[in-house]
């Protein structure tokens, strides 16, 4: 029978996972300040439910699940998309340098990923950036593995369409 972890181990695990958790929250919300709020709330939930963690999954995936639940509770219900970043170089301006264009493209992609519908966003970020396997993603999101694959497929197609439209704008 698995046992819950002790307080000292919990402390160590939380501190170790904090940087990547914050990074994940930034990708999920698209905004660093909001991400910090989400992680703060998630840490409070950890203090309330840490005894229920019995090592059935990795601690990191358990923590990511809590972050996603906080995100859902606070934002997914009222998700309506956010405007794209405005402080980007105008591609039609006089010959911006290539590094500026590359930075703009990177920001555009990030913004569009963070604007995907919540479930597609979660699946894409967890697979592409958190490097979780489909089984781990299914475990975090409490869905089937088949659902992970089909949602990922839909998310990628959507991004491809949006980026193709963006890149062919003249």
């Amino acid at each position, binding site marked *: 029978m698995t046992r819950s972890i002790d307080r000292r181990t919990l402390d160590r695990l939380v501190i170790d996972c904090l940087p990547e958790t*914050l990074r994940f929250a930034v990708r999920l919300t698209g905004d660093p300040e909001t991400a910090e709020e989400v992680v703060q709330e998630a840490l409070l939930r950890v203090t309330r439910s840490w005894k229920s963690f019995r090592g059935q999954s990795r601690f990191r995936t358990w923590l990511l699940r809590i972050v996603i639940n906080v995100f859902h509770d606070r934002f997914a219900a009222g998700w309506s998309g956010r405007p794209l970043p405005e402080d980007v170089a105008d591609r039609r301006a006089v010959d911006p340098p290539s590094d500026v264009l*590359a930075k703009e493209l990177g920001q555009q992609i990030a913004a569009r990923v963070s604007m995907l519908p919540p479930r597609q966003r979660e699946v894409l970020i967890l697979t592409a950036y958190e490097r979780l396997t489909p089984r781990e993603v299914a475990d975090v999101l409490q869905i089937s593995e088949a659902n992970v*694959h089909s949602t990922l*497929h839909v998310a990628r197609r959507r991004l491809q369409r949006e980026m193709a439209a963006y890149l062919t704008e003249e």
Partner: protein
Amino acid sequence: MTSPDDLVPQSDSRDPLDAWLGDATWPEPDRHSLDRLRRHWRRVSPRRARQQRWMMIVAAAAACLLVALMARPWHAPPVSDPSTSPKQAVRDVPPSGRSVAQPSEGGPQPVHAPKTVAGGCSREPTLLEQLAFRMVANRRQASTLRQYEQLLDAAIAQLAADPQTDLNTLCQPLHERSALIEEQLLRRIPHLDGQKQVAAICLLGRLGGPRSIPLLSEACCYESTHAAAVLALARRADPADIRRLALAETDPELKQELVAVLLARQDEQSLGIYLEFVRSRQTRQAALGVLHRVEDPPVELLFGFLRSRRHSQRLAAARVLGCLDGPVISQRLIAMVLGNVNRQEAMVALLASSRLEAAEFVEHARSDYSLTAAVHAAQYQLRSAFQ
């Protein structure tokens, strides 16, 4: 068709999306964010909470002790008069007669080295031995891989030549290494064409896992592979995805196949979606038409749906039960009517049935004063729900 390996952005993947995803840059959090979060955790962590509790307990105990010490002089008992109190002396303990062992002269005894075990000893493999083991293992692995590749080639060729080949028999020797076969198929399918591609997709439907879903979804978009891909997808897709495929499908035969998959699945979610198809006028014919295709329809689940909270689901389940053939079903329905258990729904099912005993019971019910109203109400519901 795009590569199905689309889980991780790889710089050398052919899909530009992977390169874009790798280049995505999010705004950086404030450099003090992490510090703030660490401080927040230290304030709220359970370890800290326990430390604080212990500190409070210790402080409370110390306070009590201090109070007790300060109050003691006022409550100390009177000092007894030494002239009157009984003498209490410690008794002398007689010597035991045993002497204390003297320390041995010279230093501690030397520790003898353990004898070697006769008959050989274990040791780390040398570098040469490690290389030799690895070569043998790789050779074995390569020959196994080649064997399965050959089996797969043969299976694809056979299925392409004769699409009526029994897939179960064909896939049997390949099931043992289905993960390996899936990987091979995912690599090869984009480079095959014609009947071989269709055959490979059929095999992927039998042997593949969730990883094959993106490629199968893509294959649904092409006319030559659409049917095979849809059926392959239906074997492992979620009920909601099958519903979407069935609604979008224009080929009536394929639509029925997809609806049949839902009925055959034997789970509540799939059956619930199937009943939606029965309920809907556009898909009712297809849904009821597959009843004879499914060997083992979910009869118990259907009886369970007679108690559903949703009226439309109860009626649809009743309609399906009525269409299913079987004396046991009719007997159960009759018992439900007579026992007044979901009477309306059971009566709807009997009205929809073509079995002789159902028809005889309905005739009897029409003339039975206690059941007439139920018959008329059920007739009305059947007509209005399924016109």
